[in-house]
């Protein structure tokens, strides 16, 4: 993830804060290592070195759960959230060059979760063709935040703000002088402007975007999510922020929304618990269009509790 982690914990002694700081850091690092595809000889890296058709045993229970959960997310996002797109997205890493159509098409054929087969009894997976390109990026981040939340709650922390490099923020309780934590998302196209204000109360807030403001004040294009059907990133400028109780749902939803077409929004939202989803699109001349979906935390209609 390589993200910066800032923590604000209220109502605890400095000693407890220090202890929490170390425990959280340690846990985040552990998860980062577990899910990293860059770490040589790490489990994900090993999987990505395997040849197709061979069954790969997933020893780590946590990793296996991740594969299972991501399969569910794949289904609930209409096949858009996909953890096996690493080989295609590697083609889009260069900032300037656009990869060749046929190159993309070829990699795309053997990418995506459609290539993955699960053996639930043997706790194994295999890839039907091509080179595996497992990338747990969004899942790993959401999972880490969920774990951080568990740690805080286990230590009776009731007021806290945890910031994962600005793109994901986790809060507990409320601001000492208000009823919530007031947080807003910056406009990556216009320094100083904000896109939307959120009222956070035991929420996580996550933002995905293909435009980001670098510290030189210039906004940059940034392709990190690739559409599993077209093999391309979205070209129009887009920023999606999700306010939700579950950081994992929030990460998956904001990632998927980057690629979903407006017609798909309602169907996918129906599958998730969320409090607020804000989709902003940037058209030329820095004008923005904002769509807001509010859920007021109702129970999902199709879920019986």
């Amino acid at each position, binding site marked *: 993830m*390589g*993200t*910066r982690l*800032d923590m*604000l914990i*209220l109502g605890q002694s400095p000693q407890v804060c220090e202890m929490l700081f170390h425990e959280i850091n340690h846990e985040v690092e552990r998860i980062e290592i577990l899910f990293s595809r860059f770490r040589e000889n790490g489990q994900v890296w090993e999987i990505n070195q395997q040849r197709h058709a061979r069954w790969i045993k997933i020893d780590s229970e946590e990793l296996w759960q991740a594969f299972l959960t991501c399969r569910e997310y794949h289904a609930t996002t209409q096949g858009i959230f996909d953890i096996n797109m690493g080989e295609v997205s590697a083609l889009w890493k260069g900032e300037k060059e656009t990869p060749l159509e046929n190159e993309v098409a070829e990699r795309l054929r053997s990418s995506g979760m459609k290539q993955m087969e699960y053996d639930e009894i043997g706790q194994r997976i295999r890839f039907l063709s091509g080179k595996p390109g497992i990338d747990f990026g969004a899942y790993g981040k959401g999972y880490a935040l969920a774990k951080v939340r568990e740690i805080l709650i286990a230590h009776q922390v009731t007021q806290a*703000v945890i*910031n994962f*490099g*600005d*793109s994901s*923020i986790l809060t507990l309780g409320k*601001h*000492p*002088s*208000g009823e919530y934590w*007031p*947080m*807003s*998302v*910056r406009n*990556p196209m216009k320094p100083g402007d*904000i896109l939307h*204000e*959120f009222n956070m109360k035991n929420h996580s*807030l996550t*933002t*995905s*975007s*293909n*435009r*980001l*403001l*670098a*510290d030189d004040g210039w906004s*940059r294009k*940034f392709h*990190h999510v690739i559409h599993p059907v077209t093999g391309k990133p979205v070209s129009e400028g887009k*920023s999606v*922020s999700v306010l939700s109780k579950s950081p994992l749902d929030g990460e998956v939803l904001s990632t998927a929304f980057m690629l979903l077409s407006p017609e798909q929004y309602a169907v996918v939202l129906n599958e998730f618990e969320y409090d607020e989803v804000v989709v902003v699109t940037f058209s030329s001349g820095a004008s923005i269009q904002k769509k807001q979906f509010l859920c007021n935390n109702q129970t999902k209609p199709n879920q019986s509790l």
Partner: protein
Amino acid sequence: MKDERTRRQFIRDVSLLSSSAVLGASMPWLKAMAGETQAGNGASDRVRLGFVGVGDRGRALLLNCQQLENVEIAAVCDNYEPHYQRAVELTNGKAKAFYDYRKMLDEADKLDAVIIATPLHEHAHITIDFLNSGIHVFCEKSMARTLEDSKAMTLTANRTGKILQIGHQRMFNPAYLKAYERAASGEIGQITQIRAYWHRNNDWRRPVPKGRPELERKINWRMYDEYSAGLMTELASHQIQVANWFLGETPTRVMGSGSICFWKDGREVYDNVACVYDYPKGVKVIYDSVISNRKYGLEEQIMGHLGTIEPEVRKIYSENPPPAPGFLQLINNLEKDIFETIPIGGASWVPETAVQYKGEYLVEDYQYDDTLLEMEGFVLAVRNGRPYPGLLREGYNATVAVLLGLQAMQENRIIEWPEEYAWKKNTELV
């Protein structure tokens, strides 16, 4: 006073610095200087100074002393005619001029202190002679060309109770003092390594007047082993002093390698040196100096497990960069009980575009003339008649360390710090 701004700024900073418990205790000259500077000029007693060696450095020191209040430059001495003449001119003929410092010694009762800026091999005997005549001495770094001479100078100072201050001016530099304070407060954690270097790109020679080849050794004394330990005594000395000071220790041993690599012009001293100093508890100081590339300039990179200090550029860096700006605003708001939205959320962070963390400045950006401050400190000590505790030990230990480094290079073996040259904190050199 030539640079009023620098001086006023310094007074302000020194007053602030000296109130720090750490600095007040470990750098007594600061407290003394702050007290002095706060009380106005306070220079009631006139201090009469003599100068021996008015070459490059001696001239600079003289100009500095002319900026100080209630200081009289009573005598100058140089055995090289052009410099003798220059010294006379610089003092408008008011200072009594000598070619031979021994003649100056004869009139020692007209002096309170001397400032010695002769070549390295001419430090020890002149210093010792003046101390023995009851005169306080400021002697340029390094102390002496040999271990024996350095020790003899120290013992003479201790025996006579006279001040002997060695010209390592970084101990008077506000950026270094601030850096020391922050390191001592634990901000950069446990220091395990200091990497120091001094790189220049020139032949390090001074022009010899046409038709006077016999002056080569006098003018370019730095090139000859008999007079100088080359880069070690001339450059490394400052930086090893900084290392000793920040670590609060002296090296236990040193290994090194030196060569004449680029300037093969008949010089005897290395133009390329590299040393590793071992300190107690596994700490290391890694030193190198070359004079055939200047890209990296000079620095002492003081590295702890929580941060790094680069005092030459006045910077301190944390291993854990400070919070994102939005997050800082959140904290500020909380402290002030302000409830308003924080612009914090934003696009995914990618390492390549992450904020380049450029550290933090230790002190404001202006040029401190630490040499002026060092002279101010010396004159004040003279006025009070007492040396600053601990100051001479710094000069001595830096000198011994660089000379041992040279020995390690020349003999191509690891050199242990000899017991007879050990001068630890709270002990006497015997």
